[in-house]
């Protein structure tokens, strides 16, 4: 069955233009990433049908929701979608349960994968059902908004910076729920964000937007490891590694294995075999031509240079490495690059000073 999402929109406003043509996977989380004004929210609203692009096409698998070339446009309320906005936008005149039942009562097609009690349990809001929205914290409100959207049996979930209005503590509180959705939902999620951390943690597919245009679109790591792109993630350049907990060692270290090798991190509580996503920033990777026996840096992998490119600061370059098929980025000074004669094809060792575990 064709599940691919096709989205083509052109919006021309006096102060802003959007021109995108995207093919997105019909499962997993696709992040639309860009700075404010890049058009990511407009793109999401056009997908939802909240904004009608004069030249637009949107199809979810075989279902075409918009095709302006033949004047076809299904209004928002007849689309099997769910939208979560930046502010939870709960209906203040309804209780939490009333909010959650709003879409549940009106859905015409499709079966919800979860019942109301199940989804309330999944999102940790079962104890709040009889409360009024103004008695909830920001994080709780957002979880209710997500539950409300899911209960309307959507075939796609569109999220517009759902965490942006929350402080760090609330964000950390809600992220695990989003990860749970990721693994339990069979529907695709389009996730608009301008926070690199969120994207690295949640996304499977990444679309970079800039000034209303698509700069890159592809699997998360494939896009993250591109060094030819303008410094989208800037200081945050780096790759994401899908590793597995391999062993808890006696000296309070845990060995993680990924296709490119093994890395050690501080002792983790997850059992052996648990998948863990971690992020390795380019600034935390240094390069050496010979194996370093007398270094305190534990994580050191064999790599070969794929390419190098300038960064936004003139003194530094970004080096793209291949670690047995897995990409890795290193940000080093131009002087070091010249001294070590870094060039494509060169075999060397990459020392990883820090690994950020995204869980």
């Amino acid at each position, binding site marked *: 069955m064709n599940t691919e999402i096709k989205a083509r929109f052109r919006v021309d406003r006096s102060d802003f233009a959007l021109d995108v043509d995207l093919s997105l996977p019909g499962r997993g989380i696709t992040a639309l990433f860009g700075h404010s004004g890049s058009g990511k929210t407009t793109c999401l609203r056009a997908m*939802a049908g*909240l904004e009608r692009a004069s030249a637009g096409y949107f199809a979810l698998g075989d279902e075409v929701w918009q095709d302006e070339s033949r004047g076809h446009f299904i*209004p*928002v*309320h*007849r689309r099997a*979608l*769910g*939208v979560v*906005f930046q*502010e*939870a*936008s*709960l*209906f*203040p*005149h309804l209780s939490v349960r009333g909010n959650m039942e*709003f*879409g549940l009562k*009106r*859905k*015409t097609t499709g079966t919800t994968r979860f019942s109301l009690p199940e989804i309330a349990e999944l999102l940790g809001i079962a104890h709040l059902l009889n409360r009024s*929205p*103004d008695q*909830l914290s920001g994080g709780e*409100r957002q979880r209710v908004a997500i539950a*409300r*959207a899911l209960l*309307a049996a959507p075939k796609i979930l569109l999220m517009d910076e759902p965490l942006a209005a929350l402080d760090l503590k609330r964000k950390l509180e809600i992220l695990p729920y989003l990860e749970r959705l990721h693994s339990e939902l069979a529907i695709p999620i389009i996730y608009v964000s301008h926070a690199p951390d969120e994207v690295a943690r949640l996304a499977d597919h990444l679309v970079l937007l800039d000034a209303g245009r698509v700069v890159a679109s592809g699997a998360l790591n494939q896009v993250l490891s591109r060094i030819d792109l303008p410094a989208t993630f800037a200081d945050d350049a780096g790759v994401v590694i899908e590793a597995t907990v391999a062993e808890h060692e006696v000296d309070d270290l845990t060995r993680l294995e990924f296709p490119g090798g093994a890395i050690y991190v501080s002792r983790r509580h997850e059992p052996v075999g648990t998948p863990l996503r971690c992020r390795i920033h380019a600034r935390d990777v240094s390069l050496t031509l010979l194996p370093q026996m007398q270094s305190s840096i534990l994580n050191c992998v064999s790599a070969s240079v794929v390419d190098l490119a300038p960064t936004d600061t003139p003194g530094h370059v970004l080096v793209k490495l291949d670690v047995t098929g897995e990409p890795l980025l290193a940000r080093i000074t131009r002087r070091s690059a010249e001294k070590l004669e870094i060039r494509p094809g060169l075999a060397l060792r990459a020392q990883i000073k820090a690994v950020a575990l995204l869980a």
Partner: protein
Amino acid sequence: METAAYSADLSAIWLTLKLATVVTALLLVIGTPIAWWLARTSSAFKGMVGAVVALPLVLPPTVLGFYLLITMGPHGAVGQLTQSLGLGLLPFTFPGLVIASVFYSLPFVVQPIQNAFEAIGERPLEVAATLRASPWDAFWSVAVPLAKPGFLSGAILGFAHTVGEFGIVLMIGGNIPDKTRVVSVQIYDHVEALEYAQAHWLAGGMVVFSFAVLLGLYTFNPARRKNT
């Protein structure tokens, strides 16, 4: 004599309440779509319609009454229509009074409801649409409940304003006992006849009534909730 006078007063009070109730009900029906349209449209006619609705706020009631009298009179367009329909003429009848009052009190109902609709903003209606609610459904299940304070203010102001009108009643309704003689006109009659004691009774009642209505409006109307 004494009893007859009081029964005339009671009749005027009853007529006034009946008029205000009918007018308020009609105004909610007519005013709500106008308020909705004014709150949501970006049409070029918005300013014009808004101004027309607000005219009674600034015009002397006699002006409005004069034109309504002409229009509903035997040579006016409405008058000819009602005559051809076999309804007779509207001036100096209770229905005529109702129509005139609807025009006169329209802004007092439309404006609070319009403000309430505007305060809701676009977002709750968008959310409703993403949850499968048609525009009609969203209007009733989201917009109206959220605009409840506006409806309450509009209904109370419309009612109270209709109770308090005088000029337009004289122009359109005249002073026919049991048919068009409302409290304000009755007070005028008492004063004309130097029946100050009875004028006091009714006038004082109006003061108490109006004060109670406004006190209720300002005390119990819940402050608009913050966005959640």
